[in-house]
């Protein structure tokens, strides 16, 4: 009787859940400056002077509370990157696109963001980059459209 295997019974559905994240006091200041003045700022540790970027309120080096933002030029250096060729539902851009780790001048830690305005074959680790901002900004990290060669 069991010779013909019956179709498996599946149950299709989602887990749908809305979230509204508070970015906290310090990151709010960062995003407001980004949105209103196209300025990128790092967070400076009062104890060990480390500047962490993207700015977080705890020092990655000495675990002190960090409350001070310092303005950065926005210019920086590419540490590593990849060119994305596959598609997935969570991506913000349509592939192919380049994404990389960028360390801004004056910062001790780096951010991951898109690399644009350049041929993929010309992207090299160590190259100088600068941010390109979106015209309409919403106070989130996508207000930086991408980083391009400086």
């Amino acid at each position, binding site marked *: 009787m069991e010779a013909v295997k019956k179709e498996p019974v599946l*149950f299709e*559905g989602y*887990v*749908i*859940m*809305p*979230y*509204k*994240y*508070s*970015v*906290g*006091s310090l*990151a709010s200041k960062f995003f407001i400056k980004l949105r209103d003045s196209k300025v990128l700022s790092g967070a400076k540790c009062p104890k060990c002077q480390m500047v962490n970027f993207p700015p*977080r*309120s*705890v020092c*990655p080096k000495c*675990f002190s*509370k960090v409350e001070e933002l310092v303005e950065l030029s926005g210019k920086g250096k590419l540490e590593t990157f990849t060119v994305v060729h596959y598609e997935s539902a969570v991506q913000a851009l349509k592939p192919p696109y380049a994404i990389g780790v960028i360390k801004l001048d004056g910062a001790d830690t780096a951010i991951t963001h898109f690399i644009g305005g350049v041929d993929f074959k010309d992207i090299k680790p160590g190259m100088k980059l600068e941010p390109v901002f979106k015209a309409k900004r919403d106070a989130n990290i996508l207000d930086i459209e991408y980083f391009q060669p400086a």
Partner: protein
Amino acid sequence: MANRVAIVGIGQTTHSGRRPYVNDGELIYDAVTKALADADLSINDMESVMSGNMDLFEGHHLNDAMLNLYSGAAGKPGFKMNTGGTVGSMMAIQGWYHVASGLFDLVLVIGWEKHDEGLVTPAISTITDPAVDRPFLVGAIGGLATVSVAYMQRSGCKLEHAAMVRANASQAAARNPNAHMREIYSVEEVMNARMVMYPLNLLMCCPTSLGATALILASESKAKKICKKPVWMKDHVTVHVEYGGAQFGIGEKRWTSHMEAGAKLFKRNNITKPMVETQVFEMYDPMAFAIPMWLEDFLICEPNEGWKLVEKGALKLEGEYPVSPSGGVLCTNSIGDSAILRVAEAALQIRGDAGEHQVTREVKQALASGFGGSYWSDLLLLSKTKD
């Protein structure tokens, strides 16, 4: 023989319904720095950092790794657990295993939840099997309402008793500066609250709060060096039961996870009169019927006597057997944090550091419980002395 384990540092954030000035990492950092200050230690002293919380409540997958800058776990050993309401007590127990195993001497355990970021009830609904019973679970309240109905039928407990429990809790929470709901309610006010799910009205259900608690646990040799008032984690029991159905005890003798936990813990520690040999119980009480019902279930009082103790006022802060003098989960419920907060509050009572909500009895031994999952139970015994 396991190495002895002591709680040497306690830190909790204030609890509230909203706290937009901090993000979830900063909430954790708040509790961690308070615990470190309490123990007079630095993050570098911590050999392992464990954290627990429910992934879907804030949406973060692997959030122990994601937020390890704020917990201090970056560059250190660590673990993550999530078992629903018992997360917090599981974290304390996991910390116990870290130290008792001899692998670590000084560890930090954290339980946290930031409920203002997501929707709690839909997230809780996803504890069920998606194909079978997910459409019929409406948060945790459904199951709790069901056992409450069964308890009322079985024991003679009335809605009024649940209202008394909530009114007592409000008086306790009013004296606890870290509690979330600190308004004082009369029995009548509780009775008149809007019905959410019969028999539970809005005030008889726990609120959704946010907060974090961190504990520092140490081995015996470390504890002696660094702490004047160590609180010993004398014993702990974890009991899980089959999924669904079991807690209603249909067609068979009713024996719940709480009963098994109480029986095991008291037997192992030669406790014959729990209300005498332990002096306070910080219970995970997610709704107002829990305290009378579960005092019976934990085998602390006789069956059908729990609500009579409520009626007598015996369970109040200054009563003969204070239960949840902090205001309990009824007044503060940040799920991943709720059960570890019970352990923290019980430890504060033993230290005599609970402040305005310190119970009037002298506390030598205290109980703390966790409740979660499919009616699972954690029960911990804390003690002023190590033996």
